[in-house]
C-alpha cells in the first residue's frame, strides 16, 4: 500500500521484486560481511596455489586414465560390494532393535526426566561424530574388518531411528495414552496396545530409509579399515588404478540408485 507521501515521490513508485531483507542497509551490510569473510577465509587457508594450479591438467590426465572403466576384477568388486550390502542389512536390523528402548527413553512424555536427559545426550553424542570417527574408534577396539564397519553403522542407525521414534511418540495425542492407562494396563501392555499401533508405520518407514542410508554409508567405512567396497576403493586410489576406481564408483552409484528405488517403493507400500 502506498502512502500519500509515496505518490508524491515518483522514485518511490518504481516497482521492484520483493526482497528477503527489506532494509537495504542490512541487505548490503550482510553482502559486505560475506565478501569480507570470503577474503579472510581464502587468505587464511594455507593453500599451495602452485600445486593447486597444476591440478587442472592433472585432472584431465586422471580422467583420461579413468576411461574406459576397468571391470576386469569384477569378482573382487562384486564380493566386496556384497560385503557392504550385508553390513548394511545386519546394521539396519540391529539398529532397529536397539533404537526401540533408546527411543522410548528419549520421549519426554514417557520417560522420567533424568532418563530422558541421558537418552537425549546419548543420541546427540552419537549423531555429532561423523561415521568415519566412530569407524576409527571401532577399528582400534575390535580390529580391521567388517565388524568395525557393522558397529559403526549400528551406532549411526540407532541414533537416527531412536531420534525419529522419540519425536513421533512425543507428538502422539495424550488421549489414547490416558485411555489405555485408565484401564489399568501394565507398562508392557501400554507399549503394545498404545504406542506400537501409533508408532509402527513411521518406525518401519524410517528403518527402511535407514537401510538405504546404511547402504550409502557402508561404502565409506571401508576407507578407514571398516571392511567392504570402501577398502577396495581407497586401495585402488592409492595404487593409481584409476580405471578400476571408476568401475567401483559406477557400481556404487548403481547400487545406491537401486537402494533408493527400493526404499521409495517399500515406503510407499507402507502408506
Amino acid at each position: 500500500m502506498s502512502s500519500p507521501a509515496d505518490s508524491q515521490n515518483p522514485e518511490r513508485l518504481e516497482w521492484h521484486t520483493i526482497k528477503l531483507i527489506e532494509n537495504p542497509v542490512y541487505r548490503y551490510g550482510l553482502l559486505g560481511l560475506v565478501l569480507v569473510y570470503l577474503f579472510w577465509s581464502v587468505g587464511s587457508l594455507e593453500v599451495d596455489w602452485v600445486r593447486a594450479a597444476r591440478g587442472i591438467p592433472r585432472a584431465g590426465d586422471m580422467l583420461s586414465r579413468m576411461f574406459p572403466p576397468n571391470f576386469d576384477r569384477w569378482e573382487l568388486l562384486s564380493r566386496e560390494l556384497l560385503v557392504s550390502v550385508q553390513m548394511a542389512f545386519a546394521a539396519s536390523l540391529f539398529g532397529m532393535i536397539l533404537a526401540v528402548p533408546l527411543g522410548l527413553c528419549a520421549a519426554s512424555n514417557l520417560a522420567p526426566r533424568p532418563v530422558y536427559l541421558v537418552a537425549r545426550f546419548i543420541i546427540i553424542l552419537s549423531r555429532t561424530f561423523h561415521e568415519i570417527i566412530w569407524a576409527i574408534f571401532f577399528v582400534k577396539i575390535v580390529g580391521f574388518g567388517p565388524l568395525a564397519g557393522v558397529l559403526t553403522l549400528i551406532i549411526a542407525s540407532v541414533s537416527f531411528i531412536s531420534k525419529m521414534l522419540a519425536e513421533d511418540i512425543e507428538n502422539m495425542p495424550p488421549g489414547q495414552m490416558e485411555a489405555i492407562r485408565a484401564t489399568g494396563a501394565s507398562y508392557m501392555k501400554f507399549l503394545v496396545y498404545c504406542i506400537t499401533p501409533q508408532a509402527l508405520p513411521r518406525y518401519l518407514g524410517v528403518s527402511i530409509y535407514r537401510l538405504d542410508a546404511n547402504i550409502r554409508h557402508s561404502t565409506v567405512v571401508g576407507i578407514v579399515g571398516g571392511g567392504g567396497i570402501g577398502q577396495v576403493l581407497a586401495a585402488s586410489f592409492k595404487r593409481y588404478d584409476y580405471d578400476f576406481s571408476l568401475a567401483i564408483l559406477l557400481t556404487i552409484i548403481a547400487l545406491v540408485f537401486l537402494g533408493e528405488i527400493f526404499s521409495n517403493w517399500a515406503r510407499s507400500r507402507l502408506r
Partner: protein
Amino acid sequence: MSPAEHALKHPEIWRRHSPRQTLFRYIWYVGVVFVVAWSVRSLDLPWEYFEDAGEQAMDLFTRMVPPDWDVLGAVIDALIETIHIATLGTIVTVFIAFPIAFLSARNTTINRTTWVIGRFILVASRSVNTVVWALLFVAIFGPGPVAGVWAIAFRSIGFMGKLVAEAIEEIDEGTVEAIEATGASRLQVLWIGILPQVLPVIYGTTVYRWDINIRESTVLGFVGAGGIGILLYSTMNLFRWEQVSVLLVAIFAVVVVSEFVSAAVRSRIT
C-alpha cells in the same frame, strides 16, 4: 445367514488383520530375519574380539582422561580451517547447484535430454560420499583444504540441486505466465518470475547443508583434504589419546553450535 456363517464372518474375538494378512506379515518377518542371518553368517564376524572389547574401550577411555588442554590452540586453528572448508564449499555449491537445479526441474529444463543429464548429475553427486570425493580431489589438487572445498561442493550439489529442483517444480505457474505475457525474455522470466519464488528454499537449504557440511568436513582430513581431521588422524596414530579427547570435545562443540545456528536461521526464514 446360518449361525455358523455368522460366526465365521463376525467372530467373537476381534482381530485387526485377516488370516491372509497375518500370513504375509509373518512371511515378511521370516524373510527379514533370514536375510540378516545370512548376512551376519557370510560376513564371518570375529565374535571373539567382542570378549575384550569392553576392556579395550575402558583402556582407551582411561588413556583419554584427563584431556591435555595444552593442544587447544592448535585445535582451534584447525577448527577454523574446518569451518572455512565447509563454508567455502557451501558457497561454491550454491553457484553450481543453481543452474543444475533449473536443468533438473521438469518445467524449466530445455528438453528431455538436458533433464536426464541434470538428474544424472544430481544422482551421481549424491551417491558418492564426501570422503570419496575428497579422495578424488586429493589426487587432483594434492593434499590440503582446496581438495576439501571441492569435495564438500561436489557432494552438496546433488543435495541442494534436488531440493531446489523440487521447489521449482512446485512454483505458482500463474506468476510465470504473467511475466511471459509482458513479453519478457526467458532469462527475465527466470529472474523475476521463478527466482523470487524459490529464494527462501535456496537460503534454507544452503544453511541446512552448511550445518551438515561442518560435520562432514571434520573427517576430510583422514584422506588428506584439510581441516581438523588431519590433526585427529595424526594424534590417533601417535596414540596421544589425551589429546584426542580435546579434539573430540572441540568437534562436539562446533557441530552442536552449528546445528543450533542453522536451526535458528531456518526458523526465521521460513
